[in-house]
């Protein structure tokens, strides 16, 4: 595989899975032109005029959709670790004797380790999306036939619109749908909130299959996915385990160190003058992220400050802010708990969004760049503020990018991370895998202090008089190395074999993930 050095100094392939790749050229340096991908012309004459598109089962739908070897099937992670249908889908693909599928999920979860056997036997050729947990380990060990492609949520939309990924069949899991194919995620026994990750797929895929365990009479309202884009509807007994659909990342951390980080985040947002009437923020799930919202809430109440909108994964904590009048709107990208689902269903100011509105590189603007402050995590951050979210310091691929890359475009991007985990330094010399260029990352907040990117002289000035523990990032790294017992050794990687590539939001290749040396 031929590798070249891109603008970030990382070695990347110029061809992957038979497709030509463009190496990263720098932030804001690459702008493709021409015409977007075009969906096929369809005619309503080919669909039942009485509106019933229900077919017997998934196998029938796949047959009617013309499933063949080497096709691309897309799925979405709305049901998270409770998803049972994606596994059933590939059981069916296997049963039909189909090979070499390109699986294009918006994200994968540990429940999908069921699919490892299909990666092994060639039913699935490779994954473009995210390779989490066991799938990441499988990929890192060089066992996948093709090369994995990691994209952000916005990058996924961009890849569809660029024609980089042509979806043959999209399978959309819908907690509620009608026979026409209108579908929503905010109600039904498997309610998950919104199903916006499937929006692009519903518009651009050749064939669209909606799978539901709550088939209602037409019309299914609201229609987060429009039935006019849907070919077939399949009813199943259950989409999966509801207890795993909306849980896991929604408890506030109890760790005193994480709480300290969260408190620093809230202190920083206030001290930097970001917390003022009409401001906006991006909050995700995960212990520290939830906790900083609680600290910030107290500050907002004390100062009588109200936000205009909060973007992000919604949880009961964001819902409380909305219901207590501390924010006018929640712009929800994915719903993390049942309170979020309820609020979206009942409150018109809890609005469902999609990667198109929030993140898409080919949109005429997007919401993420309008946000005043985004608080995110990372597995590693280096002394140049570059960050990694997909691999760990041992070189293993374990996470997807999610909306992380897209959120870096906020006016102030904060990474809230522990300076080390057990004996694994998080602040390092150079990240194992580059996912976010340092020029877009403004502040690193750890339990050992706050490092501000020297490019952000305005932020440095704004907090100069505060009592916050502002430190040079190199100082934090030095402290971490002293605690952990020296600079950690780099993982042993087989630099001849790229197992996955990391795409930047514009579709260029930012970095490569290499095979773990045997």
């Amino acid at each position, binding site marked *: 595989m031929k590798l070249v050095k891109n603008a970030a100094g990382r070695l990347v392939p110029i061809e992957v899975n038979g497709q030509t790749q463009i190496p990263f050229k720098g932030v804001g340096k690459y702008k493709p032109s021409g015409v977007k991908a075009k969906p096929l012309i369809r005619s309503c004459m080919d669909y039942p005029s009485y509106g019933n598109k229900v077919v017997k089962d998934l196998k029938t739908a796949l047959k009617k959709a013309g499933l063949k070897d080497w096709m691309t099937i897309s799925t979405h992670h709305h049901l998270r670790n409770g998803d049972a249908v994606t596994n059933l889908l590939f059981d069916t693909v296997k049963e039909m004797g189909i090979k070499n599928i390109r699986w294009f999920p918006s994200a994968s979860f540990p429940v999908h380790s069921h699919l490892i056997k299909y990666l092994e036997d060639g039913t699935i050729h490779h994954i473009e999306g995210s390779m989490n947990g066991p799938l990441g380990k499988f990929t890192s060990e060089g066992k996948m036939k093709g090369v994995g492609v990691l994209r952000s949520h916005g990058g996924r939309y961009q890849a569809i619109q660029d024609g980089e990924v042509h979806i043959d069949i999209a399978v959309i899991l819908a907690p509620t749908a009608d026979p026409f194919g209108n579908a929503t995620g905010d109600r039904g026994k498997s309610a998950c909130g919104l199903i916006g990750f499937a929006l692009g797929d519903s518009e651009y895929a050749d064939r669209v299959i909606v799978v539901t365990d709550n088939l209602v009479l037409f019309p299914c309202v609201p229609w987060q996915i429009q039935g006019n884009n849907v070919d077939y509807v399949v009813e199943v007994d259950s989409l999966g385990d509801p207890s795993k659909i909306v849980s896991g990342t929604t408890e506030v951390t109890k760790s005193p160190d994480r709480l300290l980080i969260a408190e620093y985040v809230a202190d920083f947002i206030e001290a930097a003058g970001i917390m003022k009437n009409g401001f906006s923020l991006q909050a995700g799930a995960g212990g520290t992220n939830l906790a900083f919202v609680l600290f910030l809430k107290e500050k907002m109440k004390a100062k009588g400050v109200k936000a205009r909108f909060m973007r992000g994964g919604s949880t009961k904590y964001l819902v409380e802010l909305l219901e207590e009048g501390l924010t006018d709107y929640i712009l929800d990208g994915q719903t993390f708990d049942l309170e979020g689902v309820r609020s979206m269903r009942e409150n018109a100011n809890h609005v469902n969004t999609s990667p198109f509105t929030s993140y898409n590189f080919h949109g005429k603007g997007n919401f993420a760049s309008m946000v005043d402050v985004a608080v995110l995590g990372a597995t590693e951050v280096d002394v140049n503020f570059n960050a990694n979210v997909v691999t760990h310091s041992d070189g293993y691929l374990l996470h997807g990018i999610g909306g992380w890359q897209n959120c870096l475009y906020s006016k102030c991007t904060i990474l809230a991370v522990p300076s080390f985990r057990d004996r694994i330094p998080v602040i390092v010399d150079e990240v194992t895998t580059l996912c976010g260029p340092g020029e877009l990352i403004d502040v690193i907040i750890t339990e050992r202090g706050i490092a501000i990117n020297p490019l952000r002289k305005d932020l440095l000035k704004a907090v100069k008089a505060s009592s916050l523990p502002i430190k040079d990032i190199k100082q934090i790294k030095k402290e971490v190395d002293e605690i952990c*017992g020296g600079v950690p*050794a780099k993982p042993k990687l087989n630099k001849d074999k790229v197992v996955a590539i990391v795409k930047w939001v514009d579709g260029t290749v930012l970095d490569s993930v290499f095979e773990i040396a045997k």
Partner: protein
Amino acid sequence: MIKILKRSSAGKRGESVRSDCYFEIELKKSNGIKLDLKSKVESMYGESIKQMILDMSKFFGLKDAKILCEDNGALPFVLAARFELAVKRLFPQTMKEYLLPITKQNLYSTKKDQLRRSRLYLPGNEPKFFVNAGLHSPDGIILDLEDSVAPAEKDAAQLLVRNALRSIDFYGAERMVRINQLPKGLDDLKFIVPHNVSVILVPKCESAEQIHQLEKEVEKIKKQHKVENQIYFMPIIESTLGVIKAYEIASASKNNCALAIGLEDYTADIGTQRTNEGRESIFARQFLVNAAKAAGIQAIDTVFSDVADMEGLRQSVLEAKSLGFEGKGCIHPRQIKVVHEAFAPTTEEIEKAKKIVLAFEEAEKKGLGVVSLGSKMIDPPVVKRAQRIINLALLNNQISKDWRKK
């Protein structure tokens, strides 16, 4: 006949273990050291862990042995303590100690009247809590060898606490150790006195004699190891007898810096239950404050054990403050800030203190023997208390350093 052990183990193993490790050493007749390392941080620190184990084996004269190490991200000071323990469980007679260098950042000493508003208890055999404890800014950190350590792991905690005193950055907090009840606690001293401890907490103290014993032993070890830094004692009164003897205990040594109270045993002694209101212990607490102040040292209140109830904690500290206590025990880092806030002086207290301190400084400048504010004379103890309030206000960022100008 002495049974010679061939095999020993130390540390913690299993799925839920974090920041700790497990060692097994099996003595062999030949073939040198055979090391089997399974580490979660193998790719990052595997080589340095192996080297450390080999160095330690050499140090302890271990020549032929099978060593198993299951490591879940233990820091070097933990690895060293666990390995040394496994060796010492094989050779209890060995006098050798594998000592890591003392962290430069910890080369500070404390004063007898140091602020001791909060002291954070850490279980002595749980290393994962040690490293970041100082970041939460307690006035003191207590590495506990007593109640939080299982009887079978006392030897493990002694080595771990010793290593922690040397290696962990306490970020300015006072380094405290709670030893076991005397006389057993005397055995703990050699693991802490030569290793940079600042305050020794003496649990269940009931007589001046115990403090004399402690002082004698501490002096002996200090001399042996040429320890020069000041080591203070904080007796903890936990029984009816202890309460009655409080003054005798408080004045038993010039090294006493504070008297603390623990109420679990005391309430059992008087045959009642602990309540949130604390009426049952009001005599003991007031008596203890009186005894401590009579001996010229600080009075420190017990812990507040409901870590979820921050408002209850705040009320409890305000009450303690009103009784004359100057500190409170903490069992969770989140309690520290609340304790500091509640001990902070009120705005009225600060304003009054400012006037007194300014009047005192004015009188000094003019060489006057008597300080007066308006028509009132001010006694020296009042001035001292005012200075203390100003210091506290400075520490809590309630006033700026240049408050005199404003």
